[in-house]
Structures are given as C-alpha cells and as structure tokens.
C-alpha cells in the first residue's frame, strides 16, 4: 500500500487539517508504513458472520424519565452579555429593524 502525496492532501482535506508542503513526502512515507503494517490483518481469514466486539454494557441503559437538570457549570450571568433579575437582557425589538437607507 503506497500512499501518495495527493492521497495525503485528499485525506487532510477530509480531516479539515492543513498540512505543510515540506512535510508531505515524510508524511506520505510514514502513512504508507503504518498502513502496510496494519494490512497484515487481512492475512487472517475472518468469517463475515463474525460480529465486531465492543466492550461495555450490551444495551444503552435508560435513566428514570425525570426532569432533574444539573446546575450549569458556569452561571448564566457569567457568560451572558447582560443579565438582570434572572433574565437575559437583550436589545429592544425595535432596534432589530433594518436600518434606514440613509444610514448605509
């Protein structure tokens, strides 16, 4: 399995990752080595019926269906631009109107 420079660029795009032009050749070489190494998995005959194994509970456990909100780690007054008497303070609705053409 040989990974090319273009393969690395395509994968990097999928991963939303900038890759330096200078590091491309080394990266392609290292990825080829890693993928060659893990390719030995295909040497073992695995029945298609073999179910993948994941440890942990067999099914998702449900919590009792009760409303019990955990307190916020950060209080609203700490992250709101303005907060008063338990409410978020926002600009008056009228102020959201489109600005008059003269203002532009």
């Amino acid at each position, binding site marked *: 399995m040989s*990974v090319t420079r273009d*393969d*690395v660029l395509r*994968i*990097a795009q*999928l*991963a*939303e*990752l*900038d*890759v*330096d032009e200078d*590091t491309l050749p080394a*990266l392609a070489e*290292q*990825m080829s*080595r*890693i*993928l060659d*190494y*893990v*390719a*030995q*998995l*295909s040497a*073992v005959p*695995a029945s298609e019926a*073999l*179910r*993948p*194994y*994941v*440890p*942990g*509970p067999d099914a*998702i*456990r449900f*919590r009792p269906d009760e409303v019990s909100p955990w307190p916020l*780690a*950060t209080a609203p007054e700490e992250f709101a631009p303005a907060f008063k008497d338990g409410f978020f303070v926002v600009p008056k609705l009228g102020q959201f109107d489109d600005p008059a053409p003269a203002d532009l």
Partner: protein
Amino acid sequence: MSDGKAVADHLIKAKRLNALLTPPKELRKSLQAQAAAARPTGVLYGMPVAVKDNICTLEFTTTCGSRILEGYRSPYEATVVAKLKAAGALIAGKTNCDEFAMGSSTEHSAYGRVFHPLDKARVPGGSSGGSAALVGAGAVPAALGSDTGGSVRQPASFCGVVGIKPTYGRVSRYGLVAFGSSLDQIGVFGRSVHDAARVLSVISGRDPRDATCEDRDSLRLPTVPESLQGFVIGLPREYFPPELDPAVRRACDRAVRLMKELGAAVREVSLPHTPYAVPAYYVIAPAEASSNLARFDGVRYGPRFDGAADLRGLYRSTRGQGFGPEVRRRILVGTYVLSSGYYDAYYRRAQQMRALIAQDFRNVFDRGVDLLFTPTTPTPAFKAGEKLADPVAMYVSDIFTVTANLAGLPAISVPIGRAKGLPIGGQLIGQAFLEDEMLEAAYAVERVVPATDEA
C-alpha cells in the same frame, strides 16, 4: 500530610523531570486552599494525587499536552476528580503527557518531553509519563492516568511503580478528554499496590453522567492474601517470544517461581491472535481519535490560529498549527481507514480481529484460568529519541498491553526487578470486573518479588 505548602514544595523538587505542567506558584496556592478545605473524615484525607492533563479539573488548566488547548480551563470537573476531593485527597497539579494521550514515551507533548526519574537520557514511557515519573521519583504517593493501549501500565513498568488499568466500565470517564472511546479507561499509579488500590476504590463505581460506566458499587479492597493457594495463573506463550529481552525474561521467570512457591498453580496457555493485536489497535484507536478530535477546531476550545479567509480555512489552520505531528499522523490514518472504499478492508477487519482477541481470553478463562501473567513491556525504558523517527517501532512497544484494552479487561503492572538499574514490570490480566482477585495476586507478587533487585 495535610500541609498544602509542604506537599507543593515536595512536588516542586521534582521539577527537573518536566513531569508537572502546573506552575509552582499556582500549585502552592491551590494546595494550601485545598488542604484547608479537605474533609478530615475522608478515606484519602491529605493524600496528594497528581492528575494527568487530559482529565478535567476546576483548579487547573486542562491542555492534554497540546497547543490546541493551551490555557484551556474546563467549566466542570471529571467525576474521578470530584470523588477524590470528596474523599479528602488533594489534587496535586496536572501532569505532562503525550499530546491527547497518543504516544508511548511522553516525547510527544507540546510542553517538552518528560525525563525518566532514574536516567534522564531515557523516556518514562507514555502516554501518562508525567504521572508515572512523579510517583517513581517519590514526589506523590499516587497519580491518575489514562490507559487506551497501555498508557498507564507501560510507564508504570518503565518507572518502577504500580499501574492499574481497570475493567472498561469500572471507572467513570465523565471529564476525561476522549481519545479512543471504546478503549479508554482512567487508571491509577501508586508507589505500592495498596496506594493504587485505595485510589481506585475511591474513583470506581456508577456515574449517571457516563453511559458506559457500569451500574456497580465501588470496588471493595481485598485483604492481602497469605498465599496464592487456589489461584490458577496462565502464562500465554505468545507473550514470551524468543526475542524478549533476556533480563525481562529472567525477572518473569523469577516472579513465576515465587508465585508457585506461594501455592499458585501455573500453566502455559495460548492466545493465538495476539500478533494481530497491535495492527488492530492502530486501526481502531486512530479511527476513534479522528472522530473524537474533530471537536477541536478553534471555535469552541482553546486558542484560534486565525488569518484564514473563511470558516473552513479557520478550522484547517487552527488544527494544522494546534496539533503536533503524532496527533496529525493519527488523525490522517484514522480518516483514511474510515474513508469510503477502505472501511471494510481496515476498520471492519480490525473490529472483527478484536472479537477474535476477546474470544481468545474467554477461552482461557473458561478453562479454569483465573489470571494471566506476562511481561508488561518487551524491554526496560528505552532512550529518548530512539523510536521517534519510526512510528511503527514505537507502536510495537505496546504489544503486551493493547490486548487488555481491546478486550476491555482489567490489568495491573507491578515492579518485578531491575535490568542494569532500570525497572522491569510484570503484568497480571484479570477477568472483567474481578479486580479484587487481580489485586490479591498483585499484593502477593509485591510481597515476595524483590522489586529492586537485578534480574
């Protein structure tokens, strides 16, 4: 023990190891405040426990050893940290680690490498190398790490301390920054089996905030056994290959002889799919990492590397500059094996191999074997820089530890001797949720095996 300043000063003496990421001034201030507030009735009252930097704390920043989280302060704390504090323990700063726990040498931290406590030319192991080095240097009696492929047991072995990876689901992972979600477990380092077991007992148990944490009570501490009468211990032949370091083999042979003298029945067993464990691991772990690390994009956490024309440019430049080379490599490999056309050949195949590896263990345990004994690592601590150029050589050093993660089993590394002064670890792998049995045997090994004698 509850003098916060004394605890901090003792820790700061180990500064040369580069094991602690918390600045001395901040550490002193926090430990004094924590000591004043600690509950005197707690079972860990006054015990300093250092915490790996991928576990969220309110007291200190949580950077995962990465630039992308530089200065990040979590708005909540991990369940394990809350449990330690409730038991009276002091959170003794954050420890350096391989970036996002990816590595086996703690050379992949954005904040510099960690030094081995006995030989500064060598690595302490990884990825929880900072925690292991601090316990190894005697700076703290215990520390937390995380173990995705051996990241607690391997550094414990290298640094001559005890390291436990609990059963998958034994300890809550709420507040652990996810790397490989089907493999990660929070683990414990201790100077002794007892120190590690005490901490494990406190942090284990159910947590409604983690759906993968089993609905079980916290672990009860076993008593130290008089003998190993009634224990059947398996030696998997795949873990003792001809190329095993001779000193590691001698140390294991000696430990086995001493376990037999304590009354254990020892038999050779086979886990035939072991050679495929590392390849399967290096498909599954990067695949999960590429997904888990997608959240670090410069929008919600940590610094933003700006100057991009649009949003995707912002993601790409932040991730490109924020992640180090090993993390970038693993994200790319993970993205590759999950991409269309390769999924069946790599990811599905690796998951099937995982099923075969788990079945190997079940077969052995079903035939009356209680525990398995193996070397923790193929060699003692290697030299810094030795494996940096070749990622595959670094990966292969995880050969004896990744299987327990793939199968979700508990395992412990206990010091069993030295090779030219460097510690050697022996690993006991137990059955799921039978940590008490595993710890009993570990107590016995610790009691009879001369941990600091040359093998």
